[in-house]
């Protein structure tokens, strides 16, 4: 009898059927496990998103700044595009100086403000929307301006303790005081030097906060719109108003965000293209002066 080839089973002998499961193992186990795993992960994603989704207007839940930020980051580009400059009165002053770069070597946005300050409260909304177009801003808080200052209790975010992840920009926020005026972050000597130089004439008429330095390409001091637009609202209602491009809040906040975006695009060399390459941004860039990019 001729010897059989090793590993081959003689014709007629019992042979495992193709596609049959190994003994003790359910058929199609890897396929079923894969489908189950994918389904489970998608359900987890949906659950996380549900948790982060902003509540309907009028159902404010404190401590949910993540939901507000998620909503700001999700404002459709078509809406921003349709608003253009809106009713923003943000006054960007071009400067020519050594570019300001952050710890990661990217062009840096410096914000100096305080939680009690109603003008800072207004400015943060626009800045947060603009920054969210270039990266992800996390760790922001919800707060409101002082109850005893002008435009009392203006609803806003706080940048204190926030972090920013972006391929294009670095962001440094200094909140110098809480809404009662108690000291929080200290302005570093370098930041103080920038403020002394650029938060003063001819760049600023009065100086003070909020002060925003966009990579030493542009600076601005004061609010881009009146905080009075936000009076009587809470953060969720502001977010809801931003969903309506014809609301006064959307025209002011998103219009200012577009102006900041146009300046930020100058800093990033017009990247990312899907943010910086739009007609509205080009149009604003033509009006804000500055150079390069």
């Amino acid at each position, binding site marked *: 009898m001729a010897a*059989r080839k090793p590993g081959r089973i003689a014709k007629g002998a019992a042979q495992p059927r193709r596609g049959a499961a190994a003994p003790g193992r359910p058929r199609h186990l*890897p396929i079923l496990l894969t489908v189950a795993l994918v389904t489970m992960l998608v359900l987890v994603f949906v659950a996380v998103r549900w948790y982060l989704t902003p509540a309907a207007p009028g159902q404010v839940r404190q401590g949910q700044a993540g939901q507000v930020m998620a909503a700001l980051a999700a404002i*459709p580009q078509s809406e921003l595009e349709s608003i253009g400059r809106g009713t923003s009165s943000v006054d960007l002053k071009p400067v020519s100086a050594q570019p300001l770069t952050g710890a990661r070597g990217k062009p840096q946005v410096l914000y100096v403000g305080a939680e009690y300050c109603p003008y800072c409260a207004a400015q943060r909304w626009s800045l947060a929307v603009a920054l969210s177009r270039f990266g992800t801003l996390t760790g922001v808080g919800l707060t409101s301006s002082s109850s005893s200052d002008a435009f009392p209790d203006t609803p806003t975010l706080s940048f204190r303790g926030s972090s920013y992840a972006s391929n294009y920009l670095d962001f440094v926020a200094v909140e110098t005081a809480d809404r009662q005026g108690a000291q929080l972050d200290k302005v570093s000597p370098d930041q103080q030097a920038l403020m002394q130089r650029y938060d003063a004439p001819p760049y600023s008429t009065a100086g003070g906060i909020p002060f925003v330095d966009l990579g030493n390409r542009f600076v601005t001091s004061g609010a881009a719109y009146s905080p009075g637009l936000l009076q009587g609202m809470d953060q969720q209602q502001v977010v809801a108003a931003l969903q309506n491009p014809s609301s006064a809040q959307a025209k002011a906040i998103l219009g200012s965000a577009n102006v900041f975006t146009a300046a930020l695009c100058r800093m990033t060399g017009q990247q990312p293209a899907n*943010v910086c390459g739009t007609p509205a941004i080009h149009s604003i860039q033509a009006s804000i002066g500055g150079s390069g990019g």
Partner: protein
Amino acid sequence: MIGGERLLAIGVLGAALAGLGISAYLSAVHATHAPLVCSVRGPVDCERVLTSAYAQILGTAIPTSAAGIIWFGVSGVLALLQVRLSRARAALLAGLAWSVAGLLTALFLVYVEIVQLGALCAWCSAAHVLVLLTLLFTLARLERLPRAQPEPHGMPQQP
């Protein structure tokens, strides 16, 4: 290659071709700024997804859909190898590794869509389903491969 195996390999090939079509369409829209055929309101909002920072690869101007062209292209080549080379185990294992890598990437993008952006892109989701199908077809083909039999003991070896 028996009929069922060939059918599965053709399934992988079909998924690759469909995925190539979707990825090429999204890349063309990105390059030409042409209007996208897709819903822009509610949970399915292609515009929100495709104009986000995640729509381009790591800060470059390259759209994420370009990676889809490469992935589906390689997947198609591997499927062709599996069809042409009967029981091409190496090609099948390469296809499995490629599919797993593709699925992990697709899951990350699904995470970005659902959690980060709160919007789904219908075209992207179709491509993600095709990646999943590619992996399932590949797993099904692997299940059908005959297992290697152990060397029989005490048998004289053929010189």
